[in-house]
Structure formats: C-alpha cells, structure tokens
C-alpha cells in the first residue's frame, strides 16, 4: 500500500531521485565525526526558523507591548518557555558551531582547491548569524536589550563621516524608539532570514559542486563512502545531543527575561557572550579610537579571510605544515576566548560592578519567577469614581503614608479595595525585592500594569523605603491597627466623612479657606482634600506655573488634553457648572 503510494508519487515528482541525490553524496575519506558541524548548523537553523515563526504568533513588535508579549510567551503560554528557550539557546549553539565549522575549515585548509565561493559564502553567513544575534537581542525590550542595543548602535555612530547617518538610519531617528524595534523586527524576521536562505542555499550548492575536501592528510583519499547512512547518522546523533542540551537549558535555566526597558535607570549593560571579545577590546582603546577595535580590526580580519583562498594557492593542507596560518587562527580563537574570560574576570573583581551585576541578576530572576500579569490596556479605573476617604490620623508613620496614598484603592486594611488588589503577602508571595518595590511605587518600573496604579513620585525615597519594608513584612490585615487600639477604633468609618481638616497642607488649617464643595466632590479623590496631592499631583501654588494661570485652568477643565494632561486626569468635567469651575479655580489660586 505504502509502496504503491510512494511509487505513484515518485513517478510524478521524482522524489526518489531527489532523495538519492541527497543521500548518495560521496564523501572522500569516509564518514567522520569532524564533519558534523555543517549539518548541525543547518538543522539548528531549521529549528530557529520553526521556533521563530511561532514566537511571532504572540509577539507584539511595538515598544509599549513587546515586553509584556514576551513575558506572556515565557510565563503563560503552554510550551512558550520551551519554544523561546530553544530559540534563545539555539542561537548561541549556532554561533558556537559556526565558529567551530569556520576554524576547522581554516585549520584543515578545506577552503582550497577552487572553494573560494564556498568559503566566502560561509564567512558572510558568519556575519549574518551575528546580525541575527544583534537584532534579536532588542526584541524582548528588556533593560538588557535596550541598553545593550544602545551601546552597540553608539559604536556605529562613531564611524567617521557616514557613522552618525548610518546610526540614524538604523535606529529610525536619534533615539531607540518603537521605530527601532520595528526595524530590528523586520530585519530579524524577514530580511535577514531571506538573505540567509539565499546564502545557505548557495553554500550547500557550492559544497555539492566542489565536494567535501576530505581529511587533510590525504591518507584515506582512495576510500569514499556515501553520505547516507553513516554520516547522516553521525549528524543526527550530534543534533540530538544538542537538541537535548537545549531542552534542558530551556526548561531548567530558562531563557532570561528581565524587566521592561526603562531609559531613566542606570542599568549596567553587558553584551551577549559572542560580542564580549569586541566589548573587552574597546576598553583598551581611548574613546576617540573606538573605531580601531570595533570596526577596523574586525574589518581587516574579514577582508583578509575573504581574499585568502585567492592568494593562498599552495596545495598543502596539513595544519602543522602551515604554521603561520595555524598560529594566527589559534591566536584569534584563544585570544577571543581570553578576552571573554578577562571581561568576566574584571566584572567579578570590581566590587561595585559585581554588586550591581548581582543585584540586577537577582531582580531579573525574581521577575522571571513572578507569575504573569497581563498589561492593562485602557483605563482600569471606572470613570464615575466612588469617593472613598480615609482619615489619616495615625501615629505609625508608615500607616500615615499608607492611609494618605494607598488606602483609597487598596482598602482600609490593605486586603484589597474597590480599585486595587490586596497587598497582604503580596510582596512575599511574588518574591518582590525591596529594590523593585522602591521603583514600583514611584513608577520607575511599571510592569505589569502601567496605567492602573499611579506613579507616586511625590513620595521621598525614605517614605518609599518605609512602605517597601512594611509591605515585605505585611502578613495580615491586623498589622494595620495600631498598638493599644481596639479593633473597633481602628476600623475606620466607611461612609465618606465631611472633608477633614487638611493633614499635611503647607499652611495651618486655619489659614486655608475650605475647599469648595465642587472640588471635594470632583477633584479631591485624586488631588486630596487640601489639594496637597494624593494619586494626582499637588495643586498648591499651581497658578504660578506656566500655562496654569486661572484663565488657563478654566480652559483646562474643559479640555485637559489640550494642556498635555493624560489619563487618569479626565479630559473634561461636564458635570461642573461654570460657577463650580470658577469657585475651584478661585480657591486654587489662593493656595500659595
């Protein structure tokens, strides 16, 4: 039955001949372990294509969603961690195999005997693989990705004459923006793969034309063996081994994923390992000589390698009888390896750097282990917000901060309110670090829901520190009642109280006229009863600011977007009458 189908197919497609053509490639000197690199790369490339295609199924190539979408793939989608891990570690495996393949071809003189094009197409693919690494690095839009790309593209800007222009073309502007991400995405997913298919196809075709070079010692030249089955088997076995290693890495170590890129932080960026030699070399050249290690040296090396088969016409292939070539290649290989080790060693020896790198790594691991939280798209607070007021008369300073800033949303006992989640055990169960909380509260790290929680930038570092410590140890709602207080006293009234005397206003309560009713009803939820700021910024002294004169404020209340204000500030207040607005602005202009 199968045989019939097969011969039916074969008659029409010639598939048998094709398979024969592939399988019956004669190998001079017989099948060998040392020939596995090329096929290994090819199989890994197929795996990269496959995993890459499926990664784009959930990936969103825009700077505001890229990170959340990668986190979704990594943490939520079944099989996502595996596919992403295979793609991530697979790229490193390709580069390792490519270097081995390249070094072997060079050392064994296999580029000789009319194999110039085969050699050059291979070199180009080596570059292409690095370009894949460079463009793919930015796509998860993590801190590491952002700052790594920043350094990489800045080097490009150093090239005299054309450099800055090239950098701008590459970035799609002067800065790394969502356009940069789109460009890198297009390159990584469309243009480079097309180029790669072209080059890889030519490479294999050239290889088939010239045939394998065979061992350099020519001892077994008389012997030939067909590609199938022994060489195919060796190739498959090696690929299987690599595949299993990749799976183990993907599932145990996982592909790293740190926090979302934030250009305002002082992240310490280190390139991926395959760019470390270049990176390390950069340190030994002064700033105005950046070009030498970054462009000139690699450029010269590449050109020399590319023209090598045209000049090196001797038939000798034995590495020991080509001492100059062999020594140069070994120098290059061990030199690069040494630079990688040196770079790691230097980072490890400098206590400041080491502490910084370690704390970054801890944060990344904590983020990777935290459960996936979808990104909030659109306003997550109701437009018609209920007023919840809590009086902040607490002796414990942390509770004071809590009630003034957090209780509105997270509830009076921190076990969750109408608008915010429970904070009890939140920090401990999600393994959030103190550092992370500090940044989260002020809005510097806004993952996963950038819009749902306001940025509390008005809180000082100390205040945020107190909150963070408190949150880390928050195990039960009882911790919100003050010592000596009975539970009844501490449970605050749930009905909105009439506006309490301002607790933290810049002036004493008696000197400030009471806020108009319209303000208390409409604005106080965010800006505080005394306009001293709560979720929204303080409005004290606002009329002294540019574009915020009383006249401006009146217009602003009708169209806040025209004044550059964004959600969660409402665009306008249709419920306020003209008199209401005037009363509010009048009152605000008195607060100095």
């Amino acid at each position, binding site marked *: 039955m199968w045989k019939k189908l097969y011969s039916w197919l074969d008659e029409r497609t010639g598939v048998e001949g094709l398979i*024969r053509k592939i399988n*019956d490639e004669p190998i001079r000197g*017989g099948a060998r372990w040392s020939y596995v690199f090329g096929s290994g790369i090819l199989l890994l490339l197929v*795996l990269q294509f*496959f*995993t890459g295609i*499926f990664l784009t*199924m*959930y990936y*969103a190539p825009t700077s505001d*969603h890229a990170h*959340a*979408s990668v*986190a*979704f793939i990594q943490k*939520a*989608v*079944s*099989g*996502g961690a*595996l*596919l992403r891990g*295979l793609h991530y570690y697979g790229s490193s495996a390709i580069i390792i195999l490519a270097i081995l393949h390249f070094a072997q071809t060079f050392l064994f003189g296999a580029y000789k005997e009319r194999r110039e094009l085969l050699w050059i197409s291979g070199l180009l693919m080596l570059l292409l693989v690095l370009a894949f690494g460079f463009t793919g690095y930015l796509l998860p839009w993590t801190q590491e990705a952002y700052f790594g790309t920043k350094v990489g593209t800045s080097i490009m800007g150093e090239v005299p004459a054309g450099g800055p222009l090239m950098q701008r073309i590459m970035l799609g502007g002067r800065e790394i923006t969502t356009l940069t991400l789109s460009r890198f995405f297009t390159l990584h997913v469309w243009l480079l793969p097309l180029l790669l298919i072209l080059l890889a196809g030519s490479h294999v075709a050239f290889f088939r034309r010239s045939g394998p070079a065979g061992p350099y010692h020519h001892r077994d030249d008389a*012997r*030939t*063996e*067909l590609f*199938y*089955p*022994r060489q*195919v*088997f060796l190739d*498959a*076995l090696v*690929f*299987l081994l690599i*595949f299993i290693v990749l*799976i183990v890495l993907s599932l145990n170590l996982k592909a790293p994923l740190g926090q979302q890129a934030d250009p305002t932080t002082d992240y310490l960026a280190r390139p991926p390992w395959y760019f470390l030699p270049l990176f390390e070399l950069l340190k030994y050249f002064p700033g105005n000589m950046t070009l030498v290690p970054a462009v000139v040296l690699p450029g010269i090396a590449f050109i020399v390698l590319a023209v090598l088969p045209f000049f090196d016409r001797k038939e000798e292939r034995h590495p020991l009888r080509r001492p100059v070539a062999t020594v140069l290649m070994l120098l290059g290989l061990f030199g690069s390896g040494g630079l990688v080790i040196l770079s790691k060693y230097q980072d490890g020896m400098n206590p400041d750097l080491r502490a910084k790198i370690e704390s970054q790594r801890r944060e990344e691991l904590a983020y990777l282990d935290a459960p996936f939280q*979808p*990104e*909030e*798209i*659109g*306003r*997550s*607070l*109701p*437009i*018609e*917000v*209920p*007023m*919840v007021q809590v009086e902040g008369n607490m002796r414990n300073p942390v509770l004071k901060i809590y009630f003034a800033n957090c209780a509105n949303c997270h509830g009076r006992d921190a076990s969750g309110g*109408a*608008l915010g989640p429970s904070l009890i055990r939140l920090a401990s169960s999600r393994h959030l670090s103190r550092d992370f909380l500090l940044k989260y509260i002020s809005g510097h790290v806004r993952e996963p*829901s950038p819009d749902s929680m306001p940025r509390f930038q008005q809180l000082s570092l100390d205040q945020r520190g107190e909150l963070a410590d408190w949150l880390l140890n928050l195990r039960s709602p009882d911790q919100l009642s003050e010592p000596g207080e009975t539970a009844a006293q501490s449970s605050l009234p*749930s*009905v*909105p109280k009439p506006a309490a005397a301002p607790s933290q206003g810049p002036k004493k309560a008696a000197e400030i006229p009471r806020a108009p009713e319209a303000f208390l009803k409409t604005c106080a939820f965010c800006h505080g009863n005394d306009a001293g700021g709560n979720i929204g910024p303080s409005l004290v002294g606002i009329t002294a600011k540019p574009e915020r004169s009383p006249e401006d404020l009146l217009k602003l209340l009708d169209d806040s977007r025209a004044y550059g204000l964004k959600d969660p500030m409402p665009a306008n207040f249709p419920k306020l009458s003209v008199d209401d607005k005037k009363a509010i602005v009048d009152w605000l202009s008195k607060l100095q």
Partner: protein
Amino acid sequence: MSKPSNSAHVSDRRSFLGKITGLIAAFVAAVVGVATGKYALYPAFRKMSEEQNWQVVCPLEDIPEHEPVKRSVVISQDAGWGRFNSQRLIWILRDGSRVVVFSATCPHLGCTVNAASNGFMCPCHGSAWTGDGQRLGGPTLRALDTLDHRIEEGVLKVKYEFFKQSIAEKEIIS
C-alpha cells in the same frame, strides 16, 4: 568501508543506522510538534474564571438612595499579553439594601440612556421608561435591561452583559 555497489543501496537504506536516524528525527519532530501544538492552541481552549465576569462598582454605602445614580464599570478582556479594559455605563436605583441595576445601553439601538424628570429617556430616538425601568413609549420594544448584581462585604458588584437590540425579549448575546 568498501565502495557500495548499486545493489547495496536497498539494503543500506534499511540498515540499522538508517532506522536509528529515523527514530531520532521522529523524536525531535514529536517534541517540537507537541510543544508547538500546545503553544498555538493555548488561547483557544482557555477557561475564563467566573469571577472575571463580575465588575466592582463601589461600596454600597457610597450610592445615594432614591435617585437614579450613574456609574461606570470596567469590563476587562484578558487576551494574551493584555488586559483590555473598556468602560460601560450603568444606572443604579437604591433603596436601603434593595438595589436594581440597569444597563445604560438603550434596548432600541444602543445609545446611552439618560435619567429624565419622570424616569429614563434615550436621546437618540426618544424611547422613554418609568423610574423603575418599565417601558413608557418611543421605538423601544422592551423595558430597560436589568443586570445581575450582588453585594459582597458591602461592595456592589455587577455582571455586565450585552443584550440583543430591537426585540421585545431580553436576550443575552454570548
């Protein structure tokens, strides 16, 4: 190994090594295939938690009594990496702990229903309802659509739903 003759091809193909190679290929394909299948189908078969259908309005105490109160609820759709929020308007009538919640979407063609002096009124084509949502006049074929609600620990929650328009019966669009 000797140079294989043509007749050796067939036996070669069936050789032990060939079979193992086939097994390896099958193994790799199976692992990648199963992982990819699960990956691609993931969102298609994910259950929504019942809790997601209930939206918090506000503490019951905060709703004034004996007058229609307009509030908004945020309905969230978890789709992949995002939680896509959008706002829907509701009308609440409260008498102590007795609460009725109406969708503010007009059952005629979907405009937003307003409160009027003697009940509710749709600005688009003039449908009108009494203060407790009964149909008074205009093109609407039915009363205002009530929404399920519950009160949990003093907080009013609503299950926002969409209903078919322009028909006499209230029918949920799922």
